[in-house]
C-alpha cells in the first residue's frame, strides 16, 4: 500500500524542514511576537492600574476638596456671624458713644448758656442798677429841689426802716 508507506526521504525532509523553520521562526518571528504581545499586555495592565490609581486619587482629592469646601463654608459662616456680631457691637457702641457725646455737648451748651445767662443777668443788674441810680438821681434832684419834700421823704424812709 503506497498510501500508508513511510518514505524515508520524505520523513528526513519533514523533520529537517520543520526543525530548521522552527528555529528560524523562533528567532525571527515567535520571539519578537510573543515578546511584543507580553509587552503590550503588561503595558495595558500597567495603564489600567495607573488609571485605577488615578481614579482613586481623584476621588480622594475630590473628597478632600469637598471637605475643604465644607470647612471653608463653615469658616465663612463663622466669619459672617462674627462680623455681624461685631457690627452690632460697633453700632451699639457707636450709638452709646454718640448719645454720650450728644449729652456732653448738650450739657456743655447748657452750662455755657447758663453762664452766659448769668453774665448777662449780672450785666443787666449792673446796668439797670446804674440806670436806676441815674434815674433816681435825676428824679431825686428834681423832687428834692425843695427842702420840705426832702424832709418829708427822709421822715417817711426813716419810718419805713423802723417798721421793718
Amino acid at each position: 500500500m503506497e498510501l500508508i508507506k513511510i518514505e524515508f526521504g520524505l520523513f528526513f525532509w519533514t523533520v529537517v524542514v520543520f526543525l530548521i523553520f522552527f528555529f528560524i521562526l523562533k528567532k525571527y518571528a515567535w520571539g519578537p511576537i510573543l515578546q511584543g504581545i507580553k509587552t503590550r499586555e503588561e503595558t495595558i495592565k500597567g495603564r489600567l492600574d495607573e488609571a485605577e490609581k488615578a481614579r482613586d486619587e481623584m476621588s480622594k482629592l475630590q473628597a478632600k476638596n469637598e471637605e475643604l469646601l465644607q470647612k471653608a463654608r463653615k469658616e465663612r459662616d463663622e466669619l459672617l456671624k462674627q462680623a455681624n456680631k461685631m457690627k452690632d457691637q460697633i453700632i451699639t457702641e457707636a450709638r452709646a458713644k454718640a448719645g454720650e457725646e450728644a449729652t456732653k455737648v448738650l450739657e456743655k451748651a447748657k452750662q455755657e448758656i447758663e453762664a452766659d445767662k448769668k453774665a448777662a443777668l449780672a450785666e443787666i443788674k449792673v446796668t439797670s442798677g446804674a440806670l436806676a441810680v441815674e434815674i433816681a438821681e435825676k428824679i431825686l434832684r428834681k423832687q428834692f429841689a425843695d427842702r420840705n419834700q426832702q424832709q418829708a421823704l427822709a421822715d417817711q424812709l426813716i419810718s419805713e426802716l423802723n417798721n421793718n
Partner: protein
Amino acid sequence: MSLKRLLIVSILAIFCTQFAFASNPEEGGKEFNVGQHLMHHVLDSYDWELTEYKTGEDSAGNPIYGHLAIHLPRILYSSEHGLEFYSSTDAMRASGKYEVDSHGHAHIGHAGSESDHDHGPAVYDFSLTKTVVQMILISLLMLWIFGSMAKRYKKDPNRAPKGAQSLFEPIVIFVKDDIVAPNLKERTDGFLPYMLTLFFFIWFSNVFGLMPFNSNIMGNITVTTALALLTFILTNVNGTKDYWKHVFAMPGVPGWLWPLITVLEILGLFIKPFALTLRLFANIVGGHFMILSLVALIFILGQNGQLAWAGIAASPIAILFPAILMLLEFLVAGLQAYIFTLLTAVFIGMALESHDHEHAH
C-alpha cells in the same frame, strides 16, 4: 534584510529545476480508473503536476495525454553510486543507473517491479518531492507572514494590530492561552514557539492542501509520523521522575501488578504518537478522498464519455456536495491543527507533571 534575501534565494533554489512540458504518452483508451486517479492525486510525487492535456490520438482514435508539470530534483544516495543529484526523474532515468518503477521510485538492478519489497541494493531517496517543496514553500510563507508581523512588534508593541497581524495575533494568543498554557503551566513560554510552529504549519498545510495544484501535506502518513515522532521525543525527553515512575512503578498499584501495568504503559507511550499520526493523516486524506470521489462521480456515471448524459446529470451533485464538503474541510483543517497541537501540549504537560501520590489514579 538578510531574512528577505534568504527567502528569495530559497524560492529561486526550488524553482531552478526546469519547468517542463513533458509528454510521456500514456496508454490511451483504457478504462478510466478512478481508484488509480485518486491515489495519484493524493500521493506524493516526484514532479509537480499542474494539468494533463491531450497531445494526440493513437491509431485507434483514443486520446493520448501529456503532463504539464514542474520537474523536481532527485537526490539519491546508494552505496554503489554515492550521493547523486539529478534535475528530474527523466534525467535520472536517462543516466541508466537506476530503474524507475511506476511510482517513480528508484531502484538499482531491479527491473521495475511494482512490488514494495525491494530486493536490490538500498537506495536512499532524498529527492525533493512535491510534498517537500510544498512544505518548504509553506514554511517560507510562514516566515514571511510572521517575520513581517514580528517587525511590527519590534517597532512598537503597543501599537494596535494591523493587517495580517490582526488576523493572526488572536490565533497566536488562542494557541498560547487556550492550548499551551492550560497544559504546560509555568513551562508555557519555553514550549510556545514549538507549539506555534506546529499549529500554523499543520493549519497552513491543510488549507493549502485544499487548493488546486497543491499537495495534501498532512494527508501523507510520512509527514504526520515525523511530526508525531517529534512530539514523542519532546514528551519523553522532558519526562520527569514522576512520569517515569508512572510508567515503571505505578504508584498505588500492588507490586506484583507492575510488570503488567508497565507493559501497558510502555505500549501507551507509543500508542499516543501513533494515534496522533493516524488521526491527522486519516482526517486529511479522508477529506480529500471524499471530495475527489464525489467529483469522480461524473466520470464514473458518464463511463468516460460514453454515457455523457449520465455524467451531466450527476454533475450538480458532484459539484454541490464537494462544495459543501470543502467548507467542512476548511473547518477540519483548523480543527486537526488544533487537536494535534492540543494533544502534543497535553502529552508534554503530562510528562512534565510532578505531583504527590496521595490521590488515586
